[in-house]
C-alpha cells in the first residue's frame, strides 16, 4: 500500500537507551546548548534499519506523565484484559483460553484456503415455494440438515474434505467427533491403555521391518497429528506424575525453569546433595515408541507424496501460508486442509516499562470502546503537520473525495533541485504556552541529499485555552496579524503565492498553533540528467541504483520544547485553572520526528 504524503512519524526516545548515550534526551535546560551540538554528530537517520522500530505515528504513542516521556509499543508492557473471538465477539474466560488453544470453540471457522470467515449453510433441497405466500407453510422452520461450512469468498466448502454436520450449532464438538472418527478409521490409537494400542504397536514394528525389505509394503501406520499429540501428551503426563510421586516438588504445576522447584530438581539431579540414591527421581526420558508419541520419518510416505503431487498437480498442493495456518504439521495437500477455528483477540492494558504506571486501560467488556485510563501522546506533545505552501493538493490525502488515477498525484511529487516551501504547523495540546526549538541536519541523510532550511527555528506556541476564549477575543486579532505580515511582505501581498517567506519570522499563528516555513530543495536522483547533487559527497553512490523508497524525501527534525507548568501537578485542566507564579516548574522535552514530504521525481 502506498504511503500517503505528507506524514509525520515520531521517534520514541527509548531508541536512545540502547545506544551509547542513555540519558541524551533527559537533559536539563542548562545542558541544552551542548546537547544540541552533540546531537549534530549523530543526527537521527530515518533510513537506518533501527529507525523502523522507533518511528510511530502519533496516535500509536502514549505518554507517561510520571516519567514525562513518550512511550512507544517498545517501551510499554502489555497486560491482557480479556480474550474474545473477533467473529462472534464472545468473551472467553482466561481459564479456558489455554486449553482451547487460543481459538474460538463456538461456531467460528476460517476458510483454510483464503482465511475469510466460513458460513454454515444447509444442504436441504429447496422447496418449490417462491413467493412469501408459497413459502408461508415452511416459513416457520429454519432449513434442516445436513449442514456444511462454506466460504463466501473463494467458494471452498467442507464438502471438499467430506465433512458435513448434523446440527448447525456446536460445530467444534461435531468437528472433533468427525476428525476422531477419521483417525479411528485410519487405524490409530487415542487410548494408550487399550488392547488395540498394544496390537498396533506390534503391527507397526512388524511393518517397519517389512518396509525395510520390500518397497511394495503398505505404509506403516503413522497416525495423524492429533493421535501423536495425544500419545505424546499422555506419555509426558505419565512421566510427570511418576516424577511428582517421587519428588515432593511437583513439576506439573509450573514449567518454568526459573522456579524454585525446578532448581531443586536440577540440584537433585546433578548436585551431589545429601540425598540417597533412592530418593533421586528417574530423569525424564524422551518418547521412544509410537504409543508414546514418537514420530519416525518414513521414506515411503515421501514417495507417496511425490506420486500424489504428480497426480493432483499444483492446484492440489497447499501453499506455504495455508500449511502454516493449519495446526498440524504434515499437511501438504489441499484436500487435507481443515477449517480453522478463529483465533482469539485480546484487549490489552499498557504500562510504562520504567515506572509501571498504567498508560492505557480499556474497560474489560468486549462491547465497549471506552477507556478507564488513556494517556495519549497526542494530548501531551505538540502535533506536527506539514503541507505544501504553494501547491494546494487537490484533495486531502487521507480523505480523497474522488478517485485518483494512479500516478496523477502531483502534490506529493517533488521536482529535484527546485526549492519548495512547506508549511510546518505545530499544534500545542498543553494548557501552557510552549517555546519550541527546531533543528534539522542541513542535508537529509541517505544517498539522495536534499537541502532543508527551517526559516524560523525558534518560536512560541500559545496554550490550548478554551476554544471560546479565542472565538470571542482574537477574531480581529488574527486577521490584523495576517494583514501586517502581508504588508511587510511587499506590494503584491494580496495573493498567497506572492507572500515571501521571511527568515526568522513566523508565518502564521493561531490560538494554540504556529506555522513556520521550511524550505526544501530536493536532491536529484542519481540516475537523472546531469548527476547534480546538492550534497557534498554524493557522487560516490551516484551510479548505484536506488534502493526501494530511496526517492522518498524524509526530513528528520529535532523538536525541543520548554514550558512552565504547575509544579508537581499533572497537565490536567485543574492545574491550569489556578495559575500561580509560586508553584511554577520549568519543564523541557525533546524528541526526533520524521516528516515524509513526498517522492522526488526521477
Amino acid at each position: 500500500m502506498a504511503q500517503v504524503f505528507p506524514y509525520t512519524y515520531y521517534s520514541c526516545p527509548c531508541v536512545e537507551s540502547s545506544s551509547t548515550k542513555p540519558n541524551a534526551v533527559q537533559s536539563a535546560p542548562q545542558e541544552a546548548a551542548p546537547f544540541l551540538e552533540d546531537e549534530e554528530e549523530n543526527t537521527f537517520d530515518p533510513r537506518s534499519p533501527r529507525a523502523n522500530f522507533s518511528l510511530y505515528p502519533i496516535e500509536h504513542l502514549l505518554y507517561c506523565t510520571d516519567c514525562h516521556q513518550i512511550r512507544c509499543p517498545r517501551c510499554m508492557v502489555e497486560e491482557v484484559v480479556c480474550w474474545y473471538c473477533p467473529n462472534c465477539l464472545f468473551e472467553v474466560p482466561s481459564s479456558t483460553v489455554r486449553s482451547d488453544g487460543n481459538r474460538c470453540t463456538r461456531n467460528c471457522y476460517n476458510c483454510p484456503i483464503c482465511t475469510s470467515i466460513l458460513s454454515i449453510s444447509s444442504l436441504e433441497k429447496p422447496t418449490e415455494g417462491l413467493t412469501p405466500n408459497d413459502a408461508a407453510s415452511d416459513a416457520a422452520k429454519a432449513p434442516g440438515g445436513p449442514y456444511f461450512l462454506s466460504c463466501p469468498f473463494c467458494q471452498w466448502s467442507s464438502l471438499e474434505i467430506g465433512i458435513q454436520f448434523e446440527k448447525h450449532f456446536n460445530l467444534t464438538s461435531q468437528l472433533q467427533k468427525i476428525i476422531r472418527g477419521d483417525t479411528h478409521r485410519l487405524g490409530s490409537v487415542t487410548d494408550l491403555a487399550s488392547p488395540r494400542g498394544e496390537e498396533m504397536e506390534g503391527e507397526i514394528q512388524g511393518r517397519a521391518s517389512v518396509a525395510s525389505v520390500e518397497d511394495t509394503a503398505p505404509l506403516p501406520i503413522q497416525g495423524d497429528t492429533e493421535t501423536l499429540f495425544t500419545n505424546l501428551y499422555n506419555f509426558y503426563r505419565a512421566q510427570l506424575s511418576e516424577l511428582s510421586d517421587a519428588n515432593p516438588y511437583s513439576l506439573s504445576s509450573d514449567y518454568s525453569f526459573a522456579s524454585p522447584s525446578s532448581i531443586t530438581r536440577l540440584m537433585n539431579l546433578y548436585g551431589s546433595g545429601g540425598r540417597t540414591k533412592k530418593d533421586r527421581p528417574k530423569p525424564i526420558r524422551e518418547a521412544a515408541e509410537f504409543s508414546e508419541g514418537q514420530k519416525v520419518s518414513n521414506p515411503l510416505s515421501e514417495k507417496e507424496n511425490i506420486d500424489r503431487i504428480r497426480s493432483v498437480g499444483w492446484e492440489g498442493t497447499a501453499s506455504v501460508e495455508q500449511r502454516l495456518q493449519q495446526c498440524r504439521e504434515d499437511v501438504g495437500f489441499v484436500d487435507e486442509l481443515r477449517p480453522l477455528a478463529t483465533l482469539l483477540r485480546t484487549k490489552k492494558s499498557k504500562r510504562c516499562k520504567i515506572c509501571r504506571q498504567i498508560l492505557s486501560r480499556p474497560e474489560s467488556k468486549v462491547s465497549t470502546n471506552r477507556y478507564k485510563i488513556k494517556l495519549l501522546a497526542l494530548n501531551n506533545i505538540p502535533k506536527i503537520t506539514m503541507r505544501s505552501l504553494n501547491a494546494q493538493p487537490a484533495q486531502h490525502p487521507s480523505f480523497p473525495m474522488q478517485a485518483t488515477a494512479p500516478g496523477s498525484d502531483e502534490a506529493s511529487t517533488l521536482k529535484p533541485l527546485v526549492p519548495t516551501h512547506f508549511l510546518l504547523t505545530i499544534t500545542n495540546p498543553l494548557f501552557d504556552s510552549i517555546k519550541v526549538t527546531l533543528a534539522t541536519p542541513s542535508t537529509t541523510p541517505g544517498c539522495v541529499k536534499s537541502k532543508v532550511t527551517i526559516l524560523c527555528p525558534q518560536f512560541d506556541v500559545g496554550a490550548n485555552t478554551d476554544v471560546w476564549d479565542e472565538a470571542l477575543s482574537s477574531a480581529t486579532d488574527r486577521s490584523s496579524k495576517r494583514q501586517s505580515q502581508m504588508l511587510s511582505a511587499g506590494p503584491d501581498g494580496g495573493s498567497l503565492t506572492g507572500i515571501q517567506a521571511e527568515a526568522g519570522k513566523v508565518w502564521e499563528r493561531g490560538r494554540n498553533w504556529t506555522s513556520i516555513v521550511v524550505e526544501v530543495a530536493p536532491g536529484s536522483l542519481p540516475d537523472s540528467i546531469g548527476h547534480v547533487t546538492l550534497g557534498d559527497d554524493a557522487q560516490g553512490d551516484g551510479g548505484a541504483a536506488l534502493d526501494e523508497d530511496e526517492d522518498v524525501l524524509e526530513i528528520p527534525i529535532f523538536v525541543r520544547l520548554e514550558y512552565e507548568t504547575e509544579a508537581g501537578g499533572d497537565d490536567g485542566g485543574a492545574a491550569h485553572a489556578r495559575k500561580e507564579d509560586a508553584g511554577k516548574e520549568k519543564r523541557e522535552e525533546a524528541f526526533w520526528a520524521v516528516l515524509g514530504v513526498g517522492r522526488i521525481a526521477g
Partner: protein
Amino acid sequence: MDQQASQAKRVSTSGTSSNRASTAKRSSTNVPKAPTSLDPNAIIANHAVLTGIHTISVAAGTVIHPHARIISTYSAVDIGPGCIVSEKAVIGLSDLSQDDPEGDLELPEIIKIGQNVNIESGTIVEAAEIGENTLIDVDVKLGAGSVIGKNCTISACSVVPPGETVPDYTVIYGNNQRRLNKSLQSTPVILDIKSKGHEKQLNVLQRLVPSNLAKWQ
C-alpha cells in the same frame, strides 16, 4: 419520482424516430439509442442505459438495474433469461483504444450472456461469453473477448485478461488466484439451492425495480 409520467411519455413516443434524439439528450452522450429486442417479461429500469448500433436483446425475467449500461457500439449484446445486471455495471466494449491499442485483438461479434448470470455493480464486461449461473462480483473486469464458463464465480475486483478462457466451475478470488469449485461440481444440491435463491431474488427485484421497457423498444 416522475417515473409514471416519463413512462407515459415514452410510451407515446416509442418506436418513432423522434425518440432517438430525446434519448440521446437524456443520457447526455451523443451515442444513439440501440436497436433492441426485449422480452416483455424483462425488467429494464428507467435509468438504465442501452446505447449502440448493434442489437441488444434481453430475454425474459432478466432485471437490469438503474444506471446499468449496455453498449452495443462494437458488438451486439445478447442477455439470456433470468440475469441480473446491477447498477454501474457496463456490458459491452466501450473504448477500444484502451484495451487494444494495436487493434490485433479479435473482437467478438456478439457478447452472449447465458441464463441466470448475476452481474454485480461496477463490473466491466467485455467478454464474448458468460456461461449460465455464473456470478460476476463487484468491480470485476472481464477483458475483451474472454470466455467465462458455466457456474463460475469471479470474486470482487478480479480481472480476466482479454481473450482468456475460464473453464466451467472456476473460482477466481483474491489476487486473481484460481481454483475449481469442487463442491459445486460434485454436489448438485448446492446448485439447486443457489438457483433457487437466484430465482427468489429475481422475483423480489421484479417487485422492487419498476420497469420501463417501453423506453427502449
